[in-house]
């Protein structure tokens, strides 16, 4: 049993401590959170319920004791493959996580015309991969490949249909000033991009 004591802390510190406790606890280990004020209790309960974690609440001498029974749950966020994978393999299927990192709108160095051709070919072939990659992350000039006039836009759409997550670096989008020309993809900050790369078993860089 892991104890998280939030007495004396005000919102959102108790929630942060709870979250931290859940991340640090061993798989299956229960977490007990001690809370001394009703607002924090209400927010922590809501947070746990929304994240589909089972818990019980006991009142004891003016304190609330929230016990989170974790059973076989190992992750917290609903969208576990994207944000919260703590295991080296995807917990739902046990398969390896493949991420494609697209860092340029061309494939390889040397000749730009050839590089563009190769990149188109890369995307056309990637659509045929079985299973499709879990995520494709676009950064630096790579984000241009998600633009409305991109020669690989249709392939990106096919990937989305196959369940591949498309992540575009928002700093790069702002840098190139192409925000209003991106019909597909999620805008992501460095934290999210780094997490996706960190949780990958394979990273493919064209």
């Amino acid at each position: 049993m892991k104890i998280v004591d939030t007495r004396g802390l005000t919102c959102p510190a108790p929630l942060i401590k709870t979250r931290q406790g859940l991340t640090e606890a061993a798989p299956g280990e229960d977490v007990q959170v001690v809370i001394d004020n009703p607002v924090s209790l209400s927010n922590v309960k809501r947070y746990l319920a929304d994240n589909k974690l089972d818990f019980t609440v006991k009142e004891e001498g003016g304190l609330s004791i929230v016990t989170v029974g974790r059973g076989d749950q190992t992750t917290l966020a609903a969208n576990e493959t994207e944000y919260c994978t703590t295991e080296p393999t995807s917990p739902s299927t046990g398969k390896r996580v493949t991420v494609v990192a697209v860092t340029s709108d061309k494939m390889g160095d040397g000749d730009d015309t050839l590089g563009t051709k190769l990149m188109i070919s890369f995307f056309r072939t990637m659509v045929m991969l079985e299973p499709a990659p879990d995520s494709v992350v676009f950064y630096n000039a790579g984000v241009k490949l998600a633009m409305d006039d991109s020669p690989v836009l249709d392939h990106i759409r096919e990937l989305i249909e196959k369940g591949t997550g498309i992540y575009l670096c928002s700093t790069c989008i702002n840098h190139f000033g192409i925000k209003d020309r991106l019909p597909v993809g999620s805008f992501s900050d460095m934290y999210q991009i780094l997490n996706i790369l960190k949780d990958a078993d394979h990273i493919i860089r064209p």
Partner: protein
Amino acid sequence: MAFNLLTTVETGGCSSKIPPGQLEALLKDLPLPVDPKILVDIATHDDAGVYRLTDELALVFTTDFFPPMVSDGYDFGLIAATNSISDVYAMGGTPLLALNIMMFPSATIPLEVYSDIIRGGYDKAREAGVSIIGGHSIDDYPPKYGLAVIGTVHPDRVITNAGVREGDKLILTKPVGAGIILAGHRLNMTGAGQTDGARKMMMRLNNDGARLMQNYGVRGATDITGFGLAGHALKMARASGVTIRLTLDRVPLIEGTYGLAQQGCIPGAAFRNLEYTEAETGFREGLDYNLRMIAHDAQTSGGLLMAIAPDRAAGLLQELHAAGHPEASVIGEAVKREKEVLVLG
């Protein structure tokens, strides 16, 4: 050592608002003044009141004040003034005059801080072309500051939260996440410079947004403050008789927001706002939890959420980017009223 205003408060800025549901219950039985010259009153929960003087001229009238959300007095003054004036911009108006509203504990905080706050207010008012011509101070703890602002608008060109039409695209001009970043800052979860994005966002006047809305014939808009993006979008959808669909992946975030939310740094105001919206809101199956909470994060001096005819959205967006709103994005659309008034996807 400069006095740290954050030592006086537990929650600051627009996080300190009375919960929206409670406020509506408190106000609902008030007799509304009846006068045909009143073009906008609190019946539609708009950003400011509007009063027609002549066929060519209407007054826009609003006030806003709150406790500090940053440590420095001058910055607090800048942000509070930006936020107060924003309500005039949200109605499509041009602000003219303002009065200071100040609550300040003269016995417990060095008086220089008072001057710093007021100086911030004056500097921001000057930038907006607003003259501060008076005000009122009360001895009170913790300090609070803001303005009552008056501006003008053509009576036929008032932009309200009831003016959204089916088919309109929704553009948000500033990134969200200020409440989360400031809470993280208070808990020392942010490194040096990591609050810069939030401070910059809160100090940015919505003047260019207001000007462009008039140029593009926008009729429906609101500014995003204490009730969060979702809360204000819901109010707008309700007042306009439409359903608003937002794609949360597309909402611009202040750098660092997602990571903090992921660690559980979700201020209480976001939970209050969620309680307010959820009865009328549909959440897409599998919607990322952190994004959902970020959409409910209370903003201080947030951006404009404007409804624009779809064929004009790209042009407006481009001009917003050029006017110094690089994060402005199309984040959703208005459709015929469905069962749910707001849909977050």
